[in-house]
């Protein structure tokens, strides 16, 4: 080939490359643009955790249109994403007190996982955890998702509300998600975010303790033989590491032996863990994971722990307490421990007063024999609100009552109550505070719930 011909051929070749820069089948993405979507529905549930998933399923099964907004990628919240897969207590004093959709999901998860339910007929005494049902968290999240789909729930993962306004009898909500903003018009909102974020955006008052309960990252350690460890030596080394500033005592309740024997199951305490904003939640996650890493490195230096490993770790830290609404009624410690009955009681709750305190560990106080607490609808309704409810740990309650009410079983029951109430409120075109309670009770029973009679 002559030099002139070769240069011409090279020119053609390079032109060809420039004209077709992609492999066959590739398509050039159009420039980034945030998609704007408009939705009209009956009910919006904010948060797909223990209360929210149940609330949405209830609304869907009662035949109303419902949208569920969840800021992470799966349902179940504390049970699944945070890994606290023992959802509280459904039985008290030999009788079932929480059933309905929450229990149906638990029952199905136990069956599908080939597990056996605890013997609820045998009293748990001081060891209430004997009545805990251990769940397979991933399986539970899949079950919740499928139940939502089956009930016609419009699931919107990765979205969070940014604006909520009440206009002419409807709520108008704006949410932001990955590459999308959504405007949702609805009749009723149920805030199951745990942090009362929707209530906050909507302008209702929230309460928070100066010192909240610590958060906990659930993980599993392995690679050591507990029986082979020199625990006295480990304790001494632990104290030295605390004194030198390497470790912080409160992060594992000052008890390195318990960290080793529990292998990380619900043992960590992270002060001030708050999931309210991306920033605070990020900080809590970093703190929790950093704390785990520091303790892992410390243990790895010790004889017998050289091969210690993190076998599993949940996606994010579990949060026990942030904000609570200022509701039409605030459930007090005295109400809870005396089993106070209300005319508008719509669900039960049973758990010891279970305050995790950074300085003092955990001091559960069992309820007196025969006592079962109940939850009035008013505790789910913010003061001065219309067409708005909460369910889950952000209900209106004092700190000690909240430490028992917050557990997952009770939150599931609350979720179903809020869902059923929203349905009747939609049908009647009234606010939740004005729904005929008999109709709500009938709807709840028709969906398998156990409902207090309302006799006081």
């Amino acid at each position, binding site marked *: 080939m002559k030099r002139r011909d070769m240069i011409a051929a090279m020119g053609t070749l390079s032109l060809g490359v420039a004209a077709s820069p992609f492999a066959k089948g590739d398509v050039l993405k159009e420039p980034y643009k945030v998609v704007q979507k408009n939705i009209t529905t009956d009910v919006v549930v904010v948060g797909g955790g223990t209360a929210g998933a149940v609330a949405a399923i209830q609304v869907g099964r009662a035949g109303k249109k419902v949208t569920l907004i969840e800021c992470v990628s799966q349902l179940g919240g504390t049970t699944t994403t945070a890994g606290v897969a023992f959802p509280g207590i459904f039985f008290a004093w030999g009788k079932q007190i929480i059933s309905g959709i929450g*229990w149906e999901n638990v029952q199905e998860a136990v069956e599908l996982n080939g597990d056996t339910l605890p013997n*609820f007929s045998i009293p748990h005494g001081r060891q209430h955890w*004997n009545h805990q049902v251990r769940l397979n968290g991933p399986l539970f999240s899949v079950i919740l998702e499928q139940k939502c789909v089956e009930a016609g729930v419009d699931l919107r993962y990765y979205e969070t509300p940014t604006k909520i306004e009440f206009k002419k009898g409807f709520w108008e909500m704006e949410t932001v998600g990955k590459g999308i903003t959504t405007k949702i018009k609805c009749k009723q909102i149920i805030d199951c975010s745990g942090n009362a974020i929707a209530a906050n955006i909507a302008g209702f008052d929230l309460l928070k303790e100066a010192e909240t309960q610590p958060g906990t990252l659930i993980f599993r350690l392995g690679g050591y033989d507990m*029986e082979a460890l020199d625990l006295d030596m480990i304790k001494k080394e632990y104290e030295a590491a605390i004194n030198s500033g390497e470790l912080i005592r409160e992060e594992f309740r000052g008890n390195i032996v318990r960290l080793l024997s529990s292998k990380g199951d619900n043992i960590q305490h992270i002060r001030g863990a708050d999931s309210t904003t991306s920033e605070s939640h990020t900080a809590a996650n970093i703190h929790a994971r950093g704390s785990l890493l520091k303790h892992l490195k410390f243990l790895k230096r010790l004889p017998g722990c050289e091969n210690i490993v993190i076998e599993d770790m949940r996606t994010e830290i579990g949060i026990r307490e942030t904000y609570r609404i200022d509701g039409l009624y605030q459930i007090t410690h005295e109400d809870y421990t005396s089993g106070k009955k209300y005319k508008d009681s719509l669900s039960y709750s049973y758990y010891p007063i279970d305050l995790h305190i950074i300085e003092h*560990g955990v001091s559960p106080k069992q309820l007196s024999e025969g006592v079962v607490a109940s939850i009035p609808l008013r505790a789910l309704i913010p003061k001065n609100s219309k067409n708005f409810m909460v369910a889950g740990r952000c209900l209106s309650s004092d700190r000690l009552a909240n430490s028992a009410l917050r557990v997952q079983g009770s939150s599931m029951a609350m979720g179903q109550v809020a869902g059923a109430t929203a349905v009747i409120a939609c049908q009647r075109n009234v606010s939740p505070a004005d729904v005929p309670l008999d109709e709500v009770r009938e709807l709840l029973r028709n969906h398998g719930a156990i409902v207090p009679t309302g006799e006081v």
Partner: protein
Amino acid sequence: MFKVTKQHFLLIIAVFFIGMVPVSNTGTIQYINDKTLTIEAVEVEKRLIDFEEEISIDTLYGHLSGKGDPVFFSRNVVTSVCFDGKCRLLDVIVYWNPTGRYLGFEMPENEYLSKHDHEPFTEEEYLRLNALLADPFLPLGGFSYNEIVMEGAKDVNSESQYDDEEIDGVSSATSKFILDYVVEGAAYTTYKLWHLIYGPTSAVIKQWTTGNFDSDYIGLLLESENLSDVLWTLEQLEGKLDQYPEISPLIFEFINSNEYSLSEKAIQTINPQNLASETFQSNLVALFPQMDSGRKKWILDLFKKAPIVHPNTVTFFNEVIIDLEVPLTVILLEVYQKQELFDANSLGKVRALSKSDNNYLAQKAKRFLETVPK
């Protein structure tokens, strides 16, 4: 003249205390709790078992009825309890019920339990030990021996402000709590015995017992006065009722019980093959009205896999389908679908559902009707 020395004094004290505790016919110290079976054991079978624990190869004694069924089990345990580098012999006979539940213990002739200071157990301490050993949920089970032995475990006045009353949602108690779960001064003896009772022996016993299962023997176990024995027996029968149809009347009694777990575990024994019987189906659906939603769900799920749905049952289903709780109506629709219940009455009920005010239910019914062959 006889001079009372310190040794004599201790011996007199020991005899005094031992004299207060229950003794067997042969004069040994013995604590026996309620028995699963009250029938007489007439023979003893020995099996050499590798328990894969501290005392690995050991003899398990099966005390058998005239029919060769286990009435209770025992092991002659001789092991050492070590602490602070010193070991003491623990020589005791432990008894189990055929369900693996702790039955009691007995000291061999001339043997008695003592504490770290060599003081013999008082009657109160024997009673406490027996009560602790009878609790399968004792938090002691969550501790390693290492933790008990740990110097810190003895330190009740630990400086740590984090140790007291630590209990969380699932388990655990901390060092100071150990004192609540042991005989004071005999923590290691309590720990050793508890772990021996609820360790591998219990599983070997259960295997032996279930290996002898026939309707008569199961019937005896289900008549136990102890609820946990009955629940255990029902758990072993999960999905196996078709192998023991003779015990069905007892199972129905349990299903109808107000005790939730008894009822739940009785339902779980049913195998879909049991539903081949028309009488069985009738008896089962007759219990339906008294049941809560969760138990109804289990029963309806069984009908999805039943070999047949008998006409009387179809009639019953058609009577209740409109008034059932909504989630159960949906499950019943699945039963209709799987069992191809396409008769005129059933279809009439589903058509009525397809006009329900509840759009969710109406859609479910419509989807079912779309699948019905023309």
